């Protein structure tokens, strides 16, 4: 084996330039693939991550029927026992209990329909980092009156810290809900939807406002390991299957998931094309290396070398080209991936706006996944193996007598 490796290795350097060009083509493809895919996967992860953090959590527990008909009448009753059970489910890292509904908000002559989110100040902050978005006034604190509104809404209503706004809505079982609330904090979202039409208040205040003490519309759950989504969902479903529904972000963020899947297919398609090009590049080189050595091969078989051993040499040659190209490609792309993983590209202009439409910050984060990088290496190796099939056929059909004559 060592002997064959020696022959293969020296053969590779017999025509340095050709070998370099082939390795460079693999390198280039791997580089493109890794950069392109880590950007794509990074974006997907980021989309999911931010959607999960800002809205749904990885898993949500609702009252039965709530997702179909988002009415307070389908809310769930939250008590310490239930909280305990959810918190103690393995893989649950944190939870955010929320009561969400609609209301009309007005100040002076301005009125607007918005979503009211009743939440627990520090849990909310832990999950979505809401406190970091504060631009004016104070963040929510538990059991305190006062509401937090986004900048866009404040501008629309022309309110500032200390002003009191009127909220009007429909509470539990159709009760009329009305209150006068002081604006105590202003937050900034880049996402137009969020920046214009929602409002945060303390959970208990919301429960009072909607006349639904002890009720929640959802418990959002963050996970220690998002990879164990389904096992955790299963455990949560067993808590109270008669009264609760448990949904994953994949069921709740269907549009996002579809967008990602669609976009991913186009990415994979590009990947496929790139790999086909690389495959033919490798095949071409291997083929030349085989054809120009027919006479040599003929003599080797004549003096007693088995054909499969010749094939082994060719295989080693192609695998070495593949591995060198892959390693060089990984080495070259790693600094870029690591850099952009830590310093996501800031988007500007139309692209930024388009991204914000999806309720996300306008950044392009890169993914850094060893598994994915390894996979690309394996794919290229498989391609080199496939490219070796043709030379194997040539070798197995080689007529020794003709090959020696140089025919």
């Amino acid at each position, binding site marked *: 084996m060592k*002997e064959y490796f*020696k*022959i293969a290795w*020296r*053969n590779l350097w*017999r025509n340095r330039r050709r070998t370099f060009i082939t390795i460079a083509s693999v390198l280039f493809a791997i580089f493109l693939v890794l950069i392109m895919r880590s950007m794509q996967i990074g974006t997907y992860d980021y989309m999911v991550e931010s959607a999960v953090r800002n809205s749904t959590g990885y898993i949500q527990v609702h009252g039965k029927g709530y997702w179909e008909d988002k009415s307070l009448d389908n809310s769930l009753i939250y008590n310490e026992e239930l909280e305990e059970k959810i918190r103690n489910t393995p893989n649950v890292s944190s939870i955010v209990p929320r009561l969400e509904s609609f209301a009309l908000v007005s100040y002076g002559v301005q009125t607007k329909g918005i979503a009211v989110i009743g939440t627990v100040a520090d849990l909310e902050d832990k999950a979505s980092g809401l406190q970091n978005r504060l631009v004016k006034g104070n963040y929510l604190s538990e059991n305190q009156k006062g509401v937090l509104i986004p900048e866009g809404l404040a501008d629309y209503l022309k309110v500032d810290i200390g002003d009191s706004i009127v909220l009007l809505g429909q509470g539990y079982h159709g009760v009329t809900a009305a209150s006068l609330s002081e604006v105590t904090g202003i937050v900034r979202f880049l996402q137009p939807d969020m920046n214009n039409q929602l409002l945060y208040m303390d959970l208990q205040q919301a429960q009072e406002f909607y006349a639904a003490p002890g009720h929640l519309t959802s418990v959002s759950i963050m996970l220690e390991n998002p990879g164990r989504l389904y096992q955790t969902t299963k455990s949560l479903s067993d808590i109270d299957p008669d009264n609760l529904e448990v949904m994953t972000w994949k069921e709740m963020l269907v549009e996002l998931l579809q967008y990602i899947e669609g976009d991913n297919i186009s990415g994979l398609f590009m990947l496929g094309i790139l790999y086909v090009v690389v495959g033919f590049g490798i095949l071409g080189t291997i083929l030349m290396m085989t054809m120009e050595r027919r*006479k*040599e091969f003929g*003599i*080797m*078989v*004549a*003096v*007693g*070398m*088995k*054909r499969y*051993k010749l094939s082994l040499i060719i295989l080693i040659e192609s695998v070495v080209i593949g591995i060198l190209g892959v390693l060089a490609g990984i080495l070259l792309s790693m600094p870029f991936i690591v850099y952009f993983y830590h310093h996501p590209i800031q988007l500007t202009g139309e692209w930024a706006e388009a991204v914000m439409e999806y309720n996300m910050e306008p950044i392009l984060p890169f993914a850094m996944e060893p598994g994915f990088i390894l996979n690309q290496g394996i794919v290229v190796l498989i391609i080199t193996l496939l490219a070796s099939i043709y030379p194997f056929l040539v070798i197995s059909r080689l007529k*020794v*007598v003709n090959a*020696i004559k140089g025919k």
Partner: protein
Amino acid sequence: MGIIITKDLRKIYSETKVPVYALNGVSVTIEEGEFTSIVGPSGSGKTTLLNMIGGLDNPTEGEVHINGVNVTTLPSGKLIDFRLHHIGFVFQSYNLIPVLTARENVEFIMQLQGVPKKERAARAIELLESVGLSDKIDNRPGDMSGGQQQRVSVARALASKPRFILADEPTANLDSKSTAELLDIMLKMNEKHKTTFIFSTHDQRVMERARRIITIEDGVVAKDEF
């Protein structure tokens, strides 16, 4: 009992418009220790005969027996092993693996045979010395003259301790000095180690050195002189 016996060998190439009778009934017996030349004009069938004897090609009819084994019926995998252990080959040119040095080329065949590394190295050096190439041991074929390359080929053929060595026009590309040197070496090996040589040529000076001359014309043995 000869080490090589061919029985009524025929090779007909019928892919061409007119079938070519490259061998048309050749029966020869070659004994151990012979130094035999196959001669004849170009196209007479020398290469075809050597290829049949060497098990590189199948006859259309007839049989080749080597050491009592009918090689014409061996399956191709077995045949490769048979060649490895029983036959040494020297071809007209470009015999050697270009990326290996002289020593590695000689060792290569022993490595295929599974000879232990130490023994291989020692024997390769010894053989290269005996063909007068002790100063070229670590040269690659590209850095050697044609005559030197052929001498390495002879050393390689000897390395496997074959029953006989087949050499198809081994001197065809050599000048007269290199030709004489190569023949000297072959003859020396033949005399010292009783190595059987069968080589083809159409060079008068080469056939003069042979102890037996088999003349082929139009695919048949025209003369067989000792």
